[in-house]
């Protein structure tokens, strides 16, 4: 048996290590571990509730808007407020832009290097597009990354026609890039590597929350679970986290724990393993470009294609949202937080379902819980020895001799993993997440 450790220091965000055991040319064992820990949930305890916005943003710069928004929505839930229409539209534009930046960025910065030896013109063109996307986030969010304009009550930025025009002009350029470069690059991979529609299937259980929502309309993405059939709702009471193979003991960090191999716990829904992200969103939405791949959607290439098609879908939708902005009308309203209570948010971030929950007592944060998308996908195995989604995608893989690491790394990369998010988070208060039901 050969043991292969995939521990590239670069082209992954955060410290991630994947180990596979190979016997007779097949992967017989896989372990996916996050190797670093920052502990935001511990950090937030005892702080002012408003601080959650600033800290949340800094969990991950790729999903800074998503985390800030989740924190703001949790506070709005706590206080019983909703953002005014301009605020909601600006939030969707900011979050949509973040999706585009994450998808394009992942493909060109992290994935493409597995397929082509040197960055070509498309790569540098993509870098220009990423810069434009940063500017778009700055236009309504103050700066990119980590602006301070998303607040409970809405968005501080004031809509004026100049900003709308500046945003729209850039969006058209980005859309052109998606249509003329990103998608053609993706489909070229499909032609060159058709076998990649057949590997990396993973757990084939998909999970998504409602995403990119405007009040009074169904979200661009729909809540649901897809296993053998589609269950169109998500109930957060069914979410548990298992720490058997993670460096935690009785909810505290314990880096010397025997048998553990990751800083990432194992979140489970109804005790089942679920994959989150673009593939889940696009399948649950029944987007024909992805469902049309049949079983091939559940594959190394399927995940890349799902992100590409999703980028196009979101980009086009953003053009519609721009028309809803009303210059001169407020983007935010005043919010007063109660001294105690609870709030939560379940949204879609670029990487998948994102959950924040806050408990406030005597005006301070009593408890804060975060479950990031990558925690689902990069999860370690659980007490029932169920492997996480990335681990399952590697299991059974036939690997050509001498290329074990490359083939496995391509599968890991297809999940757009962000160990940066995942490894920095734990939940401190036992297995149950919280008792609310979220109807989809």
């Amino acid at each position, binding site marked *: 048996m050969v043991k292969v450790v995939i*521990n*590239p*220091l*670069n*082209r*992954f*965000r*955060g*410290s991630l*290590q994947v180990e596979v055991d190979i016997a007779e040319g097949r992967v017989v064992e896989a372990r996916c571990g996050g*190797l*670093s820990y*920052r*502990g935001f949930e*511990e*950090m937030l305890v005892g702080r*002012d509730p*408003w601080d959650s*916005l600033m*800290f949340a943003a*800094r*969990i*991950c*710069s*790729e999903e*800074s808007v998503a985390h800030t928004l989740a924190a703001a929505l949790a506070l709005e839930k706590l206080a019983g407020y909703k953002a005014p229409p301009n605020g909601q539209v600006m939030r969707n534009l900011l979050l949509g832009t973040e999706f585009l930046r994450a998808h394009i960025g992942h493909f060109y*910065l*992290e994935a493409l*290097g597995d397929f082509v030896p040197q*960055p070509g013109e498309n790569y540098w063109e993509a870098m220009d597009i*990423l*810069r434009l996307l*940063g*500017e778009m986030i*700055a*236009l309504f*969010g*103050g*700066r*990119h*990354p*980590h*602006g*301070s*304009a*998303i*607040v409970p*009550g809405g968005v*501080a*930025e*004031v809509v004026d026609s100049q900003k709308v025009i*500046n945003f729209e002009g850039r969006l058209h350029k980005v859309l052109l890039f998606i249509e003329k470069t990103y998608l053609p690059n993706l489909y070229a991979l499909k032609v060159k590597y058709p076998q990649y529609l057949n590997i990396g299937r993973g757990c084939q259980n998909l999970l998504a929350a409602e995403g990119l929502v405007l009040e009074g309309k169904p979200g661009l993405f729909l809540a649901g679970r897809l296993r053998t059939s589609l269950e169109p709702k998500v109930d957060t009471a069914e979410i548990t986290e298992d720490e058997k193979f993670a460096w935690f003991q009785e909810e505290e960090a314990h*880096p*010397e724990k025997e048998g553990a191999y990751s800083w990432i716990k194992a979140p489970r829904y109804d005790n089942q393993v679920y994959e989150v992200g673009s593939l889940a969103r696009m399948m649950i939405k029944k987007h024909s470009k992805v469902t049309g791949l049949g079983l091939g959607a559940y594959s190394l290439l399927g995940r890349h294609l799902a992100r590409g098609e999703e980028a196009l879908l979101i980009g086009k939708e953003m053009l519609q949202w721009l028309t809803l902005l009303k210059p001169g009308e*407020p*983007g935010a*309203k*005043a919010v007063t937080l109660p001294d105690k209570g609870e709030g939560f948010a379940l949204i879609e971030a670029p990487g998948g379902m994102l959950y924040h929950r806050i408990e406030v007592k005597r005006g301070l944060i009593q408890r804060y819980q975060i479950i990031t998308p990558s925690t689902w996908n990069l999860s370690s195995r659980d007490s029932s020895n169920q492997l996480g989604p990335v681990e399952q995608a590697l299991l059974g893989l036939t690997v050509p001799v001498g290329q074990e690491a490359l083939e496995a790394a391509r599968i890991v990369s297809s999940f757009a993993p962000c160990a*940066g998010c995942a490894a*920095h988070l734990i939940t401190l208060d036992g297995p149950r997440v919280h008792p609310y039901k979220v109807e989809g």
Partner: protein
Amino acid sequence: MRYLSRRKFIKLCSAGAAGLGLAQTPLPSVAAAFTAASRGKPVVLWLQGAACSGCTSSLMNSTYPQLKQLLQDIVEMRFHPQLVSTQLTLEALLQVAQEHRGRYILVLEGAIPTAKGGVYGLIHRTEQRTSSFLDVVQTLGQGAKFILAAGTCAAYGGIAAAQPNPGDCVGANNLLPADKVLNVPGCPPHPDWLIGSLAHVLMYGEMPERDDFGRARVFYEGVVHDNCPRRQYFDNSNFALVFGEPGCLLEVGCRGPMAFADCYNRQWNGGQNWCIRSGGPCLTCTHPNFPDGTTPVFKRMPNVSVLGITTTADTIGKVAAAATALGVGIHLVGSYLAGRIGTKVPVKGGENHG
């Protein structure tokens, strides 16, 4: 390589017109100078520790020079977690460092977890051997010509070191010789601050003039509040009470009075916007005590009157550090400087929200 005087370079870096950034500095000539030199382009090794990758995202937003120019013409980035496509193992990285010993620039992004030998930030783990970020920083720090601590985490611990800090995260200064470390704080730092600081050490082979917090003075000298485009509102006591209203943002938590950075002039993302212009408060993310000494955010700095305060980053920082040590809280620094604290019991942070 001294084709441009330091004084002139610093002057150009300080961005005469809003939003112009480094466009006035002849950075491509840095490239030309290095290419002409026998050793080729300067080698840069960029490591990420306890980080959110935000400093890298910010670097990618540079409008001048753009990323392509920086990576193709100006420096030889031999290692970067996202921006170098050739995958390197730890051994290969150490090999590169050995080959260029004494010559490469080490850029650190993120704080360094030091607890229990660095186990809160591992980069490699097998049955035979475990390597932590701490180990690698110490090894590579030894051989570096200069170390750029990119971002508040790498410089002072920042977000990663916020209480209770189980991993004992620290900034580069705690581990590496201060004479080699140039701090470029900001959460994230502006790309001009990163590239400008880097360009200075490359062009002149020595540190730019630094303040007491190890930052290049040219970028971190001005007080945001003193130079704020909303300053007139403050002087007229016109305060925004709801986000999105015109007015000075002090009541919604702006920390401009204790923020030393040139955002008001440079602006962000190619001059598109910046925090205060967007109506969001300044969080003073370049501050050595960010975030524990600068929160709660979105709450008025209690008891602060900044009128008449003239001070420097060094002074306000020292007072802040002393105030924090005394448990007074950094929000009161302004009052302290104005001579209002010390004679009576200060109002506690959190009880005086506007």
